[in-house]
């Protein structure tokens, strides 16, 4: 990977060698001023013996930004920027706040680099369940806490749908899905895929609808009402949407006020949990979400379910939301709701 090769020359020798040795399965590199460097791999964690000096962190950050702060300024205000191969660099430090909004970042104290990688075949388990009779995907929301593989799964779904002959559009706000360089995807997102990147999803989605006549729109990390409204409009236009959102379980998702506009937009929810890339559960969420929001879903102090929630895949003892890092209360409530529906689900293990 380009980022790893580049980082190797910037990091202290001990860390560079450790990174190169683990290039195949490293997921995250965490750099904190005055602390040991941390590598998180599929096979475990590695910590450097020596702490990283503050000036080393500054030098690495400058180099990763191509010595061009001005070009990364807007991204830094959001707390991250993305390298040309899709590696996301999260930056923590002292933000400049003018009383209403973040206007910049004054000092960086730590970096979290998440390496993007394509994992062919990671959608095999969900694939048959996502397609309707016409071979189009149900509008699907992929859920999990951070770091469990939502983006990787979305990228693989984009590639598969595109290879199956569907016109796919990706709203790639953070450059992570397709890792476009000068407008051209550097990661494999399929032969019939168009990408709009670098702008908010709420701005990209209407433009894609007008410009590219998509059959499927894919968007990562839906986070607010504007994103939700844009996706809802796409569905009303007859386009299928596949998106991801941070949530530890279905209940947590339904409780997210910023996503209330998505009630009725998605037919399926796929929850990742347990370990990166593991599909914990796939559930029909359209009616359940609406029932929750209107107070008709049993559990968590709301009234009994009017319609039984339908699960495509079932649970072994409770909600799979707990399999990730979700709150147990929500997981329990989900399990209760599942009980109300009579269970009978199928758990997908990957």
């Amino acid at each position, binding site marked *: 990977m380009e980022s790893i090769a580049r980082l190797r020359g910037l990091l202290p020798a001990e860390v560079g060698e450790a990174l190169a040795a683990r290039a195949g399965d490293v997921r995250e590199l965490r750099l904190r001023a005055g602390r040991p460097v941390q590598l998180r791999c599929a096979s475990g964690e590695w910590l450097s013996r020596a702490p990283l000096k503050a000036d080393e962190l500054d030098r690495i950050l400058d180099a990763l930004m191509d*010595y061009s702060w001005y070009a990364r300024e807007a991204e830094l205000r959001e707390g991250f920027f993305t390298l040309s191969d899709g590696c996301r660099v999260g930056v923590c430090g002292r933000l400049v706040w003018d009383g209403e909004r973040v206007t910049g970042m004054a000092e960086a104290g730590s970096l979290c680099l998440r390496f993007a990688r394509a994992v062919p075949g990671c959608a095999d388990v969900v694939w048959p369940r996502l397609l309707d009779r016409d071979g189009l995907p149900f509008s699907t929301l992929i859920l999990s806490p951070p770091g469990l593989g939502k983006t990787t799964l979305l990228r693989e779904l984009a590639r598969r749908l595109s290879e199956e002959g569907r016109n796919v559009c990706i709203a790639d706000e953070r450059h992570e899905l397709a890792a476009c360089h*000068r407008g051209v995807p550097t990661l494999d997102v399929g032969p019939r895929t168009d990408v709009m990147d670098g702008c908010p999803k709420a701005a990209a989605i209407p433009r894609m609808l007008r410009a590219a006549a998509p059959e499927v729109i894919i968007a990562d990390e839906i986070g607010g009402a504007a994103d939700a409204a844009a996706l809802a409009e796409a569905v009303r236009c007859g386009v299928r949407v596949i998106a991801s959102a941070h949530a530890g379980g279905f209940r947590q998702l339904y409780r997210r006020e910023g996503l209330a506009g998505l009630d009725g937009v998605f037919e399926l929810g796929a929850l990742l949990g347990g370990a990166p890339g593991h599909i914990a559960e796939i559930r029909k969420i359209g009616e359940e979400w609406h029932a929750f929001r209107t107070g008709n879903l049993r559990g968590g102090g709301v009234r009994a379910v009017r319609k039984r929630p339908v699960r495509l895949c079932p649970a072994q003892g409770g909600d799979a939301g707990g399999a990730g890092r979700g709150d147990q209360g929500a997981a329990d409530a989900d399990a209760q709701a599942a009980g109300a529906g009579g269970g009978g689900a199928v758990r997908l293990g990957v």
Partner: protein
Amino acid sequence: MLKLLEPVAAALSGSGCDILAAVGRAMGPGEAAASAWGKVSQGAGRRGGAIDALDAADRRTLDQLFSQLGETGRERQELLLSAVLNTLERSLDQARTNARSAERLYLSLGLLLGLMLALIVI
């Protein structure tokens, strides 16, 4: 392709100016604009080099530019560039004034020498 907010190295490389393009090419992993300029200006500042004609003040202005190029946000970069542009424009005006004075001086000297030559020959 969109060219907005290109990184420093790409912007310099595509500037169409040889000396700036050389700085852009010299930048790379671990090589900021200041150190790339240091290397390029060493070679280009030699006798007959691309910036041999610049005086010490002009070189200081360029050193200052490259020491801060890309190091700050957009607003500060714009301030830096406009400050350097103003300084260089003043230098250019001064150089033009000097050139006109020198032109008058050389014209007078030429006429005098021609006159002397005419007196000697005749």
